[in-house]
């Protein structure tokens, strides 16, 4: 009976899209752009002198992405930063190696995560994921709200060419390996 109930729950989720934690989304939207700024080689990743933050989403998560983008823009307006920010919203299916971006933030997806992670690794783009499980597929950063805010970093992709964060960052993150956390 319990197994049936669980299968039903999964099925419903598949049919009607993923449910995001709004608080987590906001936390990630606040922190991830700042993490970009901790990259010592950020100037190599600028697109026309701007930091381009691309939110990649599934079609049914468009509004979630849009909400995040708006939140980030409002945040950006409040904070004075060295570089100007540009938020791009790109569907998973449209994301390719040609997509010009400084960093990529992936929402939930069943099939594109790995592809995007590989693209980011190739291009030396900083990648963030809503779900920390995506780190196993090659995404660099994720964030969870546990007893406190916890940043996760994919240890294997850390040595990606062109990414070099301030040292102190490594002291506050939790490292995740592909095989497990």
């Amino acid at each position, binding site marked *: 009976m319990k197994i049936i109930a669980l299968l039903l729950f999964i099925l419903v989720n598949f049919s009607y899209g993923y449910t995001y934690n709004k608080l987590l989304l906001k936390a990630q939207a606040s*922190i991830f752009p*700042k*993490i970009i700024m*901790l990259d010592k080689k950020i100037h190599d990743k600028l697109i026309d002198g701007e930091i381009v933050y691309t939110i990649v989403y599934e079609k049914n998560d468009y509004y979630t992405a849009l909400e995040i983008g708006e939140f980030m823009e409002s945040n950006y307006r409040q904070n004075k930063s060295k570089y100007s920010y540009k938020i791009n919203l790109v569907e998973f299916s449209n994301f390719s190696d040609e997509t010009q971006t400084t960093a990529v933030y992936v929402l939930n997806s069943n099939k594109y995560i790995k592809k995007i992670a590989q693209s980011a690794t190739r291009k030396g783009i900083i990648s963030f994921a809503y779900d920390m499980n995506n780190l196993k597929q090659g995404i660099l950063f994720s964030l969870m709200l546990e007893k*406190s805010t916890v940043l996760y970093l994919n240890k294997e992709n850390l040595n990606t060419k062109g990414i070099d964060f301030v040292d*102190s960052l490594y002291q*506050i993150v939790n490292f995740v390996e592909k095989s497990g956390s």
Partner: protein
Amino acid sequence: MKRKSFNSLSTKIVLSIALVSIVITLVIFVVSNKINKEAFHQIEIEKANIIAQTIEPLIALNMYLDMEDKINQITLQLIENPNILAVKVLKNDNIINYVESKEHKEEVGESFVVKRTITQPNSSQATGELVLIYSNKGYKKLISKYTDLTALLILSLVILLALFGIYVKKLLYPLRQISKLLKNYSPNKNIEIPFISQNNEIGLISSALNNMQKKIMQYSKKQENINHYLEEKVNEKTLELRAQLYIDTLTGLPNRFSMFNDIVETDDGALLIINIDDFKEINDFFGHIAGDIVLKKFSNRLKNMFKTNEFAKLKRLSGDEFALLFIQKPPLQEFIKIAHKLINDVEKMIFFNDNNEISIRVTVGGAYQIDGGLEKADIALKSAKKQQKSFLLYDENLNIEGQYKENMEWVKKLKRAIEHDMIVPYYQPIFDNITDKIASFECLVRLIDDEGKVISPYLFLNVAKKSRLYSTLTKIMIEKSCMHFENLEYDFSINLSVEDILNADTVNYIKAKITQYNVTNRIIFEILESDGIENYEEVSIFTQEMKKLGCRIAIDDFGSGYSNFEHMLKLNIDYIKIDGTLIENLDNDISAQIIVETIVDFAKRLNILTVAEFVHSADVYEKVKELNVNRTQGYFLSEPRKSANKE
């Protein structure tokens, strides 16, 4: 003698090292204490800084990422450090996090604050401040540990020094042992010095001492032999000197010292002292060698004279004086007989020297008792000489000792009187027989004794002459008399003995005083004719000098001696004072009258004034006038008085 306290060399060495070590340690301790304390404090500050420095990037990052809960975690972790009392995180001057430990309140008084600016991780922009309140507990612990270690070090040092002291004592122990052994060392004693086998400095010293001991022993033996030889020589010489001490070298007779020894050993003896009369003349006339020959021969003949008498011992006392000591008293008559026989036998002796016959006479003084015998025989000898007797036996009734004592008393009295200014002149007027007025005064010496009695010069003048106080008396009389008549119009006369005139010091004094008091024209010097003026030349020089100064000269007691008129005339005298013995019976004594008349006649012819002394009665006074004597002096007219002013 105070014994010097022993100062151990080993103790000194150890104490010196200890002192130096302690001083060095203390200096090191004080300096390092200061340096270390500062260093420790600096370490703590550095530690706090390192913590702040380490933690600041994390806080900065969390602050940057707005992960304040993470900051809180970090500060809570920090506060677990027992040295951190409180952590404060400020963001733009607002405290965003503050935690403090339980010990904060207790230890905040002894803490320090470390502040660090929080900078944004990706830029140098300051975003806040990290404040650490850091406890000094760690510093105190370090200091405590350091002090404990230092104490341990000092304790170790003390123990080491104590051990070192013991070791040094042990090293120097042989020296002490050697010194103990050497305390009892004497050149005749062989001491076994240990430690010779030691192969170090002690061994060398021991060996050297052993060698030295052998040499000293050899030297000591030599020295002993020399000493023995010298002792023998000294003994020989002592005996020789002793013999010389008791034997007269000229005559070979036992001497005065020998006689003293014999007298001490004699219980009931008698003594004769034999003095050769006028032996000086033999020496002067025949020479000292002849004198010595006479003495030798004389002593030999005396020896022969008494060689059969076993109780009579002949001695030579001095140049011309011999003694015959009877160690057993003969009967008195026999004793006197021996003395007389001796004198007679000597008178018969004739000594030959270069065909000259020399005869001698002796005077003998005898004492028929051994107690004080030498002194008594000597007194008897002197009395015999005085009385011109060839022998006199000491007699207690002679009271010679009493006279000596009396003379000595008078010497004392005289000295005391001189010292206390009790020798004074008295003035007796001399009257002119024509005018019956005072013509002059004679100044007569008087002694005022302790009871204020006036003592006549007859009692002390002879004593003064013998004790050499006479010139002092003359000087006193000159000074006081001249001073007295300085402002009087009278002439005055002072008595001078021939002894005074022959004394250059006295004569100079007289000249100085008569000039000082301006009495040269009024002073008359009375020279005693009875003294027997033998040195006419010297006296004549004196009278001439005085007359040149304006003084006048009188001859006192004229007629008492054996004056040579011719000599008297040479003295160019002004007055003749006729001797009292001629005056005192002048009224009855025809002979005296004739002599006085002759003297007056003689004087008149020579323009010499005559003075009659000792005029004691009206009859004598009348006779003096009748015989045309110019002046009169005597108790009949006036006694001597204290002042010439008094009539």
